[in-house]
């Protein structure tokens, strides 16, 4: 292990900024497990968050996480820095999530159960509870709104859902979303517009 990598590893463990990403990628391409682990740790929280939000199932999100990073591990040697690592990784993750969403559209069996500190709970329940403590009428409204949002999110096409997720929760710019999904910024913008329009229409009574 080189001194530079050792120092960077120590830096990461102590919470300071990590080494240059390209250095990690090149080292991982040479088979360096520590470097690969640093790459995983740099991105895996966001990957898991994206999968959890989109799939709303701990098991599915876990599967996407495993499959995505295994694919990265297998194909990292072919990464040529033509795009950012972030874009490349998100292409893999979004494709996996889209596959899951498409399959689910066919099966129509979306789970809204999430893991909480008190055990598995319905997501709607947690949102409603935290937003309207102590006010039964507000709690009811909040629960209905959450339920309606769930329904609308479920009714979006996988692509609309993905663009909305990447923009709203992941904070990616539309230009980056276009790169990740292999489309133009304009197409991503239209997709986001359709998604928000559907939500506006469906939630008109609530907001």
């Amino acid at each position, binding site marked *: 292990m080189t001194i530079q990598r050792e120092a960077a590893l120590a830096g990461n463990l102590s919470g300071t900024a990590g080494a240059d990403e390209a250095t990690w990628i090149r080292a991982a391409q040479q088979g360096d497990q520590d470097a690969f682990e640093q790459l*995983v740790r740099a991105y895996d929280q966001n990957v898991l968050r994206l999968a959890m*939000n989109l799939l709303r199932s701990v098991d599915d999100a876990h599967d996407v996480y495993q499959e995505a990073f295994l694919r990265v*591990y297998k194909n990292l040697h072919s990464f040529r820095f033509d795009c950012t690592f972030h874009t490349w990784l998100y292409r893999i993750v979004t494709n996996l999530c889209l596959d899951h969403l498409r399959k689910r559209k066919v099966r129509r069996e979306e789970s809204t159960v999430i893991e909480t500190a008190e055990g598995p709970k319905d997501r709607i329940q947690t949102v409603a509870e935290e937003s309207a403590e102590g006010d039964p009428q507000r709690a009811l409204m909040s629960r209905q709104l959450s339920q309606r949002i769930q329904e609308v999110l479920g009714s979006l096409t996988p692509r609309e859902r993905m663009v909305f997720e990447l923009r709203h929760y992941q904070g990616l710019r539309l230009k980056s979303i276009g790169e990740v999904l292999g489309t133009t910024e304009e197409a991503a913008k239209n997709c986001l517009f359709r998604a928000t329009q559907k*939500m506006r229409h469906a939630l008109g009574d609530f907001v």
Partner: protein
Amino acid sequence: MNCEQATKELSLLLYDELSFEQEEALHQHLEQCGNCRQLLAREKTLHHALDRMEVPVGSDVLTKCRRDLRGRLSARAAGRNRLRQLWSMLARPFAMSWLKPVGALALVAAGFGMSRMMQTPAGALGSRTAEPVAMQVRYLQPDPASGNVRIVLDETRQRVMTGSLEDAAIQQVLLSAAKESSDPGLRVVSMDMLKNRAQSAVVRRALLQAVQIDVNPGVRMKALEGLKSYGSDPEARKVLARVLLTDDNPGVRIQAIDILAQSHGAENAGVFQELLETESNNYVRLRSQKALRDMNASVETF
């Protein structure tokens, strides 16, 4: 700009995706249009409601994902190394073409030799074979002329080995059981026998590997017992730091804290501080805080 265009751009405004000119034009329109201002207020409410729908990612889920991934990657790497070793072992003697027939003969001879050795009642280590305990028919070939049949069988035989724990062959088998057995009970017992032999680099490597990838917390705990005196060893320290930050079992994390704390290494402070940022288990947090206080380090990161 008219109301239809403005409505279309409201959500893009909130997402900060409009150009300077577009945003200027929209703001000018909003100043004059009460309806669109109302629509913007509704759009903001919708955004706020959507913000609350984000699914929280628990640290336990992340920890499990990381551990499972590490296990799968290690299994892949181990399998590839084994294949590579086997291949180079097999390929080396046959590198020169004139040696190929000699190699083939050698393999046949080795096969005969192995089969004779397997039939020997007692080996150098006091090993002995028994009748087959499992048998599977691999291939059948009837011979209509003679009326005989040729059967190829895969047989599993039990073999008993007896020897000292110091014996390299015994250690090799224990290491193999600790790493590869599908029975967690067997892995725990193997680890228990090996844990006092961590001065051997091979055993220490097996303990470190088990701590990181074994799915059974009992095995990981046993492996950690063997690493008690190695908290200051750089390789062990690195692995223990990872375990501390990623293992989903609080008992394992506590044991990792104890080992790192015993080594009194100031470099561990960063790990304990990082742990405090993500740790959800109160007792683990307390132990980590105590370890930091014992080394006169701050319990906060700055």
